[in-house]
């Protein structure tokens, strides 16, 4: 099929359609940018309803077994743990862990502890790409006082082979215990106790009550790291038995030694993180917030979200929400756009009833707010919760935050809530339990516009493709150094006297080498700039402001040094058109790469980088009328300012918070946030965006008196 599809293309080429397309793209390169923005705003109306792809999941097919007795069990657990928290004054962490472990043991399930240290800050921008996550597990030794304890309970499946597991996570802060966290622990325990009696389980169930005193993510990722990277060294085994000294206080007997060592179940099929949030006063129904974005825009398989949404809405009567940009919900301009799209959509609907683009105005506004948040979180590349830690091990995971509308003291409402929440989690576990393979049927690449509406990769690629389409063509036209009309003339000439054309030595085909050299020097600079923070972080007691200043100073010094070593871009006499051609090519490579790693970053980045590069033209270049030239100059300067990362950050901050105070330290803090989470966005900013910006500045300041230029004018 692939080979066959070449023929229509060749045919089109023969008919001159290729040339037409070329001319069209050359003429429309600016317009395509607007089309792509329009397409971007159309996305909410193009969102489809989610559907279950994997038939094995059959959510809600079995009656839930979670009954009021389990609710009572949860209440008993909650009373018990409240008593433990009340009794202990200082470090309630160990006591709570011991209580949970005791309860799990009473159920007949296996139990173990996991001690971990808080995550230290590291400069690790490349961690995402170094495929193996085999960091050595850092074990806390006896001198550390400040450590967290996770308690892990494991139910072995009566019908399984122990090769797969489902993970339930309930985070709680052992240092500052709150009643809603205790409620989520109780919910987790009651579901776990039900599952320990279930005869239908074919996958092991792991319940991790994660000590979130250093953050949820740190606890879960430390546990996952140890789970996936067993230590085989002989001396650490002896260490291991000493390490879990915490439970010596619990029973002190040596017969329970086996129960302290780290325990594992099979590979994880899915993970569900749930917690009960603060009580919400408004709203008629209890609702569930769903968080799914993991590091670098990775999402869990859509089927997992579908199962949760289906069970929560259609079985247990929860309202399911996803995070949204609340400022967009009330914005007037978005409402106007929504009205326009609605009117256009209803006109189109009359033309063809199959075009269902007439989305209702509130739906559109909400969809846009959700979509904007979804895109922003994916583009940032930082996980929105501890499910991100699972995704690093290719486990599909999602965080649920229950938002009850009742007060915690209200026993009636609480037991009803426990019943519904327990049934929801049981149903999800039951569905995942049915799976025979990894989640693979549904989408991995999507944006959510509502809990039950998504935009798949095939649709959201369109605005990006529209943005990217003119780049290779413009680059080719610029690299060739002749306009289309002249090329056609040349072809005609060469037909007339072919031999003369051969004799006429062009030697122009390697002229771009100088421009490529400039590009390589600037890329080298960018790599060095992106690595400097590693050394700056080694300086002790450095305020963000100082660090940022050192960073900027070093960058400028390195740039000057490189220009001295390899010659400045203008000394070699590079034509600005070639410089622009190499810049555009490098951008299309960079954006293409980034769109694969993290699409949202590429999409948002392209909106700035592409106009900046396409409009760039030397300030001194002549050959245009006054008005267009002035407009072009102004837009050039504006885009160059907008394209500088710190300036952009300032503008973003100003728009979102309304404070326009210049603080360079903010930039450092922001970057630190990105590299700590090993977000690819950091690499994008420094290896794609920054070199492009510098090249753009180089083009803008180009002196424009080249011998080649002069020759061309003579022709």
């Amino acid at each position: 099929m692939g080979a066959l599809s070449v023929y229509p293309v060749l045919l089109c080429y023969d008919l001159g359609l290729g040339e037409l397309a070329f001319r069209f793209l050359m003429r429309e390169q600016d317009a395509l940018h607007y089309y792509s923005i329009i397409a971007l705003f159309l996305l909410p109306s193009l969102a489809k309803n989610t559907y279950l792809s994997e038939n094995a999941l059959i959510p809600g097919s079995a009656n839930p077994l979670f009954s009021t007795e389990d609710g009572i069990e949860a209440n008993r657990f909650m009373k018990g743990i409240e008593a433990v928290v009340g009794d202990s004054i200082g470090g309630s962490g160990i006591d709570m862990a011991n209580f949970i472990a005791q309860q799990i043991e009473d159920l007949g399930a296996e139990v173990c502890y996991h001690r971990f240290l808080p995550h230290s800050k590291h400069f690790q921008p490349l961690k995402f790409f170094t495929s193996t996550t085999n960091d050595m597990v850092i074990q806390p030794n006896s001198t550390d006082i400040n450590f967290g304890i996770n308690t892990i309970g494991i139910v072995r499946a009566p019908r399984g082979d122990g090769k797969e597991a489902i993970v339930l996570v309930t985070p709680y802060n052992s240092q500052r215990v709150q009643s809603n966290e205790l409620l989520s622990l109780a919910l987790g325990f009651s579901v776990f106790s039900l599952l320990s009696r279930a005869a239908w389980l074919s996958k092991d169930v792991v319940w991790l009550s994660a000590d979130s005193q250093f953050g949820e993510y740190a606890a879960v990722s430390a546990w996952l790291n140890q789970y996936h990277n067993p230590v085989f060294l002989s001396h650490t085994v002896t260490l291991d038995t000493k390490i879990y000294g915490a439970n010596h206080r619990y029973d002190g007997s040596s017969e329970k030694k086996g129960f302290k060592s780290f325990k594992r179940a099979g590979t994880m099929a899915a993970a569900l993180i749930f917690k009960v949030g603060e009580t919400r006063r408004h709203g008629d129904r209890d609702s569930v917030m769903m968080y799914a974005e993991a590091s670098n825009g990775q999402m869990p398989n859509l089927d997992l979200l579908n199962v949760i949404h289906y069970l929560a809405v259609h079985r247990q009567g929860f309202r399911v929400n996803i995070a949204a940009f609340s400022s967009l919900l009330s914005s007037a301009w978005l409402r106007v756009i929504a009205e326009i799209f609605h009117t256009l959509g209803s006109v189109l609907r009359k033309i063809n009833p199959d075009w269902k683009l007439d989305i209702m105005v509130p739906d559109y506004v909400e969809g846009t707010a959700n979509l904007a948040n979804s895109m922003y979180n994916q583009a940032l590349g930082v996980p929105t919760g501890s499910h991100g830690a699972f995704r690093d091990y290719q486990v599909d995971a999602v965080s649920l935050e229950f938002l009850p509308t009742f007060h915690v003291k209200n026993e009636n409402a609480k037991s009803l809530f426990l019943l519904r929440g327990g049934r929801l989690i049981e149903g999800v576990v039951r569905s995942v339990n049915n799976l025979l393979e990894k989640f693979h049927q549904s989408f991995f690449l999507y944006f959510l516009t509502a809990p039950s509406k998504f935009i798949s990769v095939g649709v959201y690629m369109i605005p990006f493709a529209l943005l990217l389409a003119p780049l290779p063509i413009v680059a080719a036209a610029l690299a060739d150094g002749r306009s289309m009309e002249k090329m056609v003339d040349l072809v005609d000439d060469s037909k007339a006297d072919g031999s003369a054309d051969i004799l006429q030595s062009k030697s122009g085909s390697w002229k771009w080498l100088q421009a490529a050299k400039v590009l390589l020097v600037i890329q080298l600079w960018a790599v060095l700039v992106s690595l400097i923070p590693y050394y700056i972080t080694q300086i002790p007691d450095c305020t963000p402001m100082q660090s940022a200043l050192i960073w900027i100073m070093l960058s400028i010094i390195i740039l000057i040094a490189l220009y001295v070593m390899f010659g400045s871009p203008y000394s070699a006499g590079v034509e600005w058109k070639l410089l622009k051609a190499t810049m555009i090519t490098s951008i299309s490579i960079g954006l293409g790469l980034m769109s694969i790693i993290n699409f949202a970053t590429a999409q948002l980045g392209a909106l700035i980088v592409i106009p900046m590069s396409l409009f760039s033209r030397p300030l001194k270049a002549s050959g245009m009328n006054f008005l267009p030239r002035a407009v072009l100059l102004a837009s050039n300067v504006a885009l160059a300012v907008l394209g500088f990362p710190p300036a952009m950050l300032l503008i973003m901050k100003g728009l979102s918070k309304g404070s326009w105070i210049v603080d360079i330290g903010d930039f450092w803090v922001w970057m630190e946030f990105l590299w700590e989470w090993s977000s690819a966005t950091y690499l994008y900013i420094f290896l794609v965006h920054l070199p492009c910006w510098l090249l753009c500045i180089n083009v803008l300041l180009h002196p424009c008196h080249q011998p080649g230029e002069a020759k061309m004018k003579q022709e």
Partner: protein
Amino acid sequence: MAIRHYWPTAAAAVGFRLVLVLFGGDLHLASRPEVSTPLTSLRRLAEGYWLKQASMSPYSGSMYHGSPLLLSVLGPLTNSRPDGHHAHVYCSLIFVAVDFLAAMLIRATGQKLQTARNRSLKSLDLTKALSNTVNISAGDVASLIYLWNPWAIVTCVGSCTSPIENLMVVIMIYGACSRLAPLAAFGYAMATHLSLYPAILIVPVILLLGYGPDAPPPKVFLLKGSSASKSDVPDNDKTIRLRGVQQFSWKPVLHFIFWLFIWTCYVLLLSSVVLNKVGGFHDMFEKTYGFILTVKDLSPNIGVLWYFFAEVFDFFRSFFLIVFNMNIIFMVLPLAIRLKHRPCFLAFVYTAIVAILKSYPSVSYSLFALYLGLLGLFANELAEMQFTFFLFFGYIGVSLLSPVMHNLWIWRGTGNANFYFATGLAYTCLQTVLIVESVSSMIKHDRKLRLLVTS
């Protein structure tokens, strides 16, 4: 026109490699499918060496598929592991030296080609006509491309044995260019022993030994001779010009064949000494040449065969094995006829074709590392090549895309095999464009010379 700062740049390249080897830490390059193949992986070599030390055949199991000679040369070095360095630091140091040697030989070959080119242009009276075009020292360019090629550096640092294979190919071409039959025969015997595919380079080597280095086509000399005979030029001068047309001389070719026989026997003898008591020739040929020809390992690499043979029905397998292996042979004769006056360029084209069609390609074997270096040898002739901008950035784009796609497929789980295969396909297309463009611009160059002579 010599390259400014040649030696500092070359030294910087070597220094850069040394820094990466000594202080780069473990970069995990050896596990990258782009860098090491089942044939060249140093980890497999260490395994083979271990088996041999345990008095077993190094070819037992399916780990090792390389030459027995490499086992005894590099094997002992894989055993010792100095503190604070990655496992194969000694081998990598050897590869740095090997790369430098190869670069120097490429430079010497380039100088030989340059002198030959200048001589033939002089005999055609074309030095003035071509003086306005670029005239750079091709050897310097080629060796610098080889030294600074990122993929050559990655290969050198990434613990795989392909730098040695590359060196053997370069030795062969250098020996043939300078008409040193024993050296050329040594290079040929070793290169063929190590990876089989250089066997087809026998055509350019014999042409090089017979006719001498690249020259304009004989027709041009004949035209020059006839145009000169029309005018009144002394007979003496005419004979000098006609001498530009090289006659095929059999003597170095026979020398070469004699030495080839000796070297082949010697290599086989050494192999049998190494394999003494632990294995026989049958085992060796089956696990090296047989492994190459029957494409048994279908783990992903940057080529296209793994995907194809993973998909193909079993009963068609033998047929397609024959088709794909014959594909290389099919190209040999037509190209040899068309380019027989430029044997060195012919060697480059063959290497590039092998790089596309070989069963376990990596960036290290001839692919990027070697043939881009060889391409530099023809910098003057290919000055008017088309699509160079597209090719350059295409190569950069594909070589960045390929690891990302691999990561997406193997580690993230959000991609699939087609993602990675697509980059392999794109890469093969780029190579095809490169070969087609370079051959056509070389032919165009020859036509230009002819037109210059007649006008």
